[in-house]
């Protein structure tokens, strides 16, 4: 078969050569060039499209990895070192009360009725924890750092991640066992360095993640929390009278405001004691 074909092909090419001589028909260069050009063009267009699409898909996959979605509700599951706990939302304590939190810094549990303003605030001084926890309930990420271990350039890096960034706040947390701790409601990640890539991953995964914070749409702006003079952090451990983790509203019927008397224990300025 093969040899037959070959013979035929040879014959035909010879014949074609002859006939072209005889019929003065030149090789169809025009057709050949057109064919190659069309093929090259089509190949280039396809190659371009393919390259574009695969690059776009890669970029999207990289972003989608940390972007909460119906298929990927909690992207922080992919971040090494994140601690998760379930907390009941909506439990309030009075400005005069403290909560015996189970974590340091805490990332859920009962909290003050006034949420710390989280409209992209860098708090220069440590803030009362009970207010900070409430902001987590509103979808904020709280970046806490140990002031003895983070300062200068690393601190500037953290400030950039919080300053003016909605639903983000930064504050020192004296006695923190690691240089940096990130908190979102029910989530925490402690890292050694401000350059750790997991910081941005944590923020992207959990800040205002509709699947993980309890009060969708809640505000970071506040009308009862004084940004410029926030209630201060308390170094001493809470005493025996502190509200337990499963406490909150129900336990404080006795401590409520008197009817008709505007409470002088305004949540804005009253430090916990």
């Amino acid at each position, binding site marked *: 078969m093969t040899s037959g074909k070959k013979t035929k092909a040879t*014959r*035909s090419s*010879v*014949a*074609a050569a*002859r*006939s*072209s001589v*005889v*019929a003065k*028909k030149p090789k*169809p260069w025009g*057709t050949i060039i057109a*064919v190659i050009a*069309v*093929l090259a*063009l*089509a*190949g280039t*267009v*396809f190659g*371009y*499209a*393919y390259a*574009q*699409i695969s690059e776009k898909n890669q970029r999207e996959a990289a972003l989608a990895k940390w972007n909460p979605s*119906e298929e990927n509700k909690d992207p922080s599951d992919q971040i090494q070192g994140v601690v998760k706990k379930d907390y*009941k*939302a*909506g*439990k*309030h304590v009075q400005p005069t009360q403290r909560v015996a939190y189970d974590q340091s810094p805490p990332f859920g549990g009962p909290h003050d*009725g*006034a949420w710390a303003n989280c409209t992209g605030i860098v708090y220069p001084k440590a803030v009362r924890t009970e207010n900070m926890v409430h902001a987590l309930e509103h979808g904020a990420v709280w970046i806490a750092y140990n002031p003895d271990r983070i300062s200068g350039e690393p601190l500037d890096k953290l400030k950039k991640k919080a300053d003016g960034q909605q639903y983000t706040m930064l504050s020192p947390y004296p006695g923190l066992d690691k240089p940096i701790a990130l908190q979102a409601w029910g989530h925490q990640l402690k890292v050694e360095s401000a350059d750790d890539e997991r910081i941005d991953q944590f923020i992207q995964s959990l800040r205002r993640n*509709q*699947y993980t914070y*309890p*009060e*969708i*749409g*809640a*505000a970071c*702006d*506040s*009308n*009862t929390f004084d940004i410029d003079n926030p209630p201060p952090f308390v170094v001493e451990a809470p005493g025996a009278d502190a509200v337990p983790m499963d406490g909150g*509203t*129900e336990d*404080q*019927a006795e401590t*409520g*405001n008197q*009817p*008709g008397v*505007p*409470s002088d224990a*305004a*949540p*804005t300025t009253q430090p916990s004691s």
Partner: protein
Amino acid sequence: MSDTGQQRSVTTTRAVVVTVAVLAVLLLGAAVGLLIKLPGADSSATPGRDSVDVGFTQDMAVHHLQGITMANTARDKTADPAIRQLAFDIESTQLEQVGRMKGWLTLWGMPEQSVDGTHMKWMDSSSHHSSSTGGTTGLMPGMATSEELAKLRSLAGTEFDVYFLQLMLRHHQGGAPMAEYGAKHAGAPVVRTLAENMLKSQSSEGEYMKQLIAERGATPLP
């Protein structure tokens, strides 16, 4: 001999040209296929006018707006920081949620509220309709009447605070079955997620309001 040769050569050329043309068309087609996306091809289907998604979103937006009105009144009138804070929280949160819901309705090409003024049609089970303020006045469960709102505006001091809390508690409770139904039956995950979240956050806020009412020596509305 030369004739057949010529014929063969023509046939070969034609075959090559056709093959290349087909190949080129396939490559271009594949490229076009990669580059274009049909409009709406990757977005989920738009819910229909009678869907739970549209009904819940329209009705809950209207329900929320009255809550925002009452909260605004309280924010302006109260002297109690706890009430002022609660009012601000309710107002800002619900306004944000209304923004979400109206955004969806706009994207779906649906009106912001039910066109014929009826509510709750999207909830089939009649058990959810049971409310004194339901059918007759056209108000959804938990909503305050115009008279009640006028009364609220006329009060002052602790009386105002208590009545605000009572109305707002009933408002939250009245909206709960809608949120519950939406969380179970809406088609779009984003609607279900918001409805479920409302149900949870408003029920804990309701507990807080019950306590505030008790602290002021009052009881919830019957």
